[in-house]
């Protein structure tokens, strides 16, 4: 995991180094009185005249010591800006994630129990629709319906000024709906296929044979056993889920990580963009790790003491 972060930091640094302009160029365009000698002196002062690799090593040394630099747009230490954004993104993502999983499990199970019936086909169709819909367009259409035509909900997820919990929650409704709608289709399909496979195992037949009711079999014996592959795929999908959150945040002007990254990249805020990208990667990897840990809870046969993987 550390290797991935390390490689990512290198790749991101190089990529951001390839972005147009550098901080001093931006200073020059902001202040016409700067002469080219000033610019050269500033570049030397910030180390910008050195090759990219040296700059990366300097950055890395500072970063390892906990100094991630300042954000240009916010004029604050990068980490200070990012913590708030990360918190808001996690709020948005976890509500949407919970919502889609809670809806996807019963729907997927229903489809698996009625496999190849009209119920199954309709659920499948809806899943495909959810997978295929462009998230930013869905957001636009929801804004059009609920904010423009009906006027029920705000189109902007950042309530102005100090507002109560209720307004904050209200502003979150549309972003959460959008994000869960684009992820729910995939989850439902995983649940469906995994459940279908589980329901054809011998122990399910045994469970029926010993006289358990269908709901007992499905919920107690089926659900838990079918969750392992689902958790695997879900954890792999978290990166995509984060990408979805980026779009949603941009669409609804929600000040989370995604919006911040987008603004940082557009506003040539290199430090913020770099650390933001790394933080996003780190969070995704941590979530993958958590998924690995949760197997132990789902399947008592898996234990991390025995295998050295």
């Amino acid at each position, binding site marked *: 995991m550390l290797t*991935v972060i390390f*490689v*990512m930091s290198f790749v*991101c640094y190089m*990529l*951001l*180094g*390839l*972005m*147009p*302009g550098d901080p001093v160029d931006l200073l020059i365009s902001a202040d016409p009185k700067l002469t080219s000698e000033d610019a050269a002196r500033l570049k030397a002062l910030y180390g910008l005249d050195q090759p990219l690799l040296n700059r990366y090593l300097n950055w890395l040394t500072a970063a390892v010591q906990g100094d991630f630099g300042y954000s240009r747009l916010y004029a604050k230490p990068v980490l200070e800006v990012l913590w708030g954004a990360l918190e808001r993104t996690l709020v948005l993502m976890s509500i949407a994630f919970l919502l889609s999983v809670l809806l996807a499990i019963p729907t997927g199970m229903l489809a698996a129990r009625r496999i*190849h019936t009209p119920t199954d*086909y309709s659920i499948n*169709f809806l899943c*495909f*629709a959810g*997978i*295929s*819909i*462009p*998230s*930013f*367009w869905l957001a*636009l*259409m929801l*804004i*059009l319906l609920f904010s*423009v035509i009906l006027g029920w909900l705000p189109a902007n997820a950042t309530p102005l000024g100090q507002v109560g919990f209720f307004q904050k929650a209200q502003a979150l409704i549309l972003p959460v709906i959008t994000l869960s709608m684009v992820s729910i289709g995939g989850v439902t*399909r995983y649940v*469906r*296929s995994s459940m*279908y*496979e589980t329901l054809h195992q011998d122990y399910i037949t045994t469970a029926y044979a010993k006289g358990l009711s269908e709901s007992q079999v499905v919920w107690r014996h089926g659900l838990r056993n079918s969750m392992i592959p689902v958790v695997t795929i879900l*954890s*792999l999908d*978290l*990166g*995509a889920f*984060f*990408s979805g959150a*980026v*779009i949603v945040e*941009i*669409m609804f002007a929600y000040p989370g990580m*995604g919006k911040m*990254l*987008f603004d940082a*990249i*557009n506003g040539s805020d290199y430090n913020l*963009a770099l650390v*933001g*990208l790394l933080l*996003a*990667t780190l969070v*995704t*990897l941590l979530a*993958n790790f958590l998924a690995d840990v949760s197997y132990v809870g789902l399947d008592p046969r898996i234990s991390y003491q025995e295998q050295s993987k």
Partner: protein
Amino acid sequence: MTRAQLFIKRMMLHRVAVVCAGILSLLFLFALSAPILEMILNTDASKVNLFTRYQPFSLEHPLGTDELGRDLLVRLAYGGRVSLLVGFTAAIIAAAIGTLIGLVAGYFGGWLDTLLMRTTDSVIALPLLPLLIVLAVIDLEKLGIPASIANHQDIGLYRIIVIVSLVGWTGVARLVRGSVLSLRERPYITAARAMGVPAKRIILTHILPALTSPITVATTLSVGNIILFESILSFLGLGINPPTPSWGNMLTNAQELIWEAPTLAFFPGMLIFVTVLAFNFIGDGLQDALSPRSKKR
């Protein structure tokens, strides 16, 4: 279950794919006929006319006009050309990259396999969109590409094809590797190896042909995703640049104009949605048709 029922079920599964193929062909025709439509309607879709802004549906402009007075229908057709072109080209390039990586990893195994598959898994797990955004804004001149090429007006198109294929290969790579792993142990491959056929030849003549159907399925499924990525980037102003229309960038202005002209926001997105949906259903149908075993899904 009787055979008749089975047959009907198969038909059901296929019918959706068939309908989707029909819809896609119509979309292709629509995109191809852009200049013809332009001629029939007697308008110029690239000409700004501020006197004909936001016109409602009419015979002259079947879907009305946009904020610069251009015919929406014709622009949708031209945008479709771009979106479909990017979707197909990038999907094919991505499939080629993925196939190569999958073949090498699966056939040679060992540390090479570990390295390649670790990379693939990491790319899958990463939040790709922020990376794509960074890739979309990098300065080509700093990469040593001459300014005349880097500032060419069509560069946006090539750039987005390259960027999207750079991240779109993972699905194919895993699939191909998986298939190669099982093929490699088949007797006819062992026989070929025993006869001293070089690895390159075994891969090209004995393994690759057997992989046609999984690669086709994975490529079809990835076209949809790639069109989505293209539209997102273009929507954010980082992909296809106006005035060249693409379904994604037609939505950029529509967001601000959603009060004045909701139809501008509706149609481009609807076309993206329908196209992606069709590709996904066809991919799914192909999967069922080509491998009867994958019924379980």
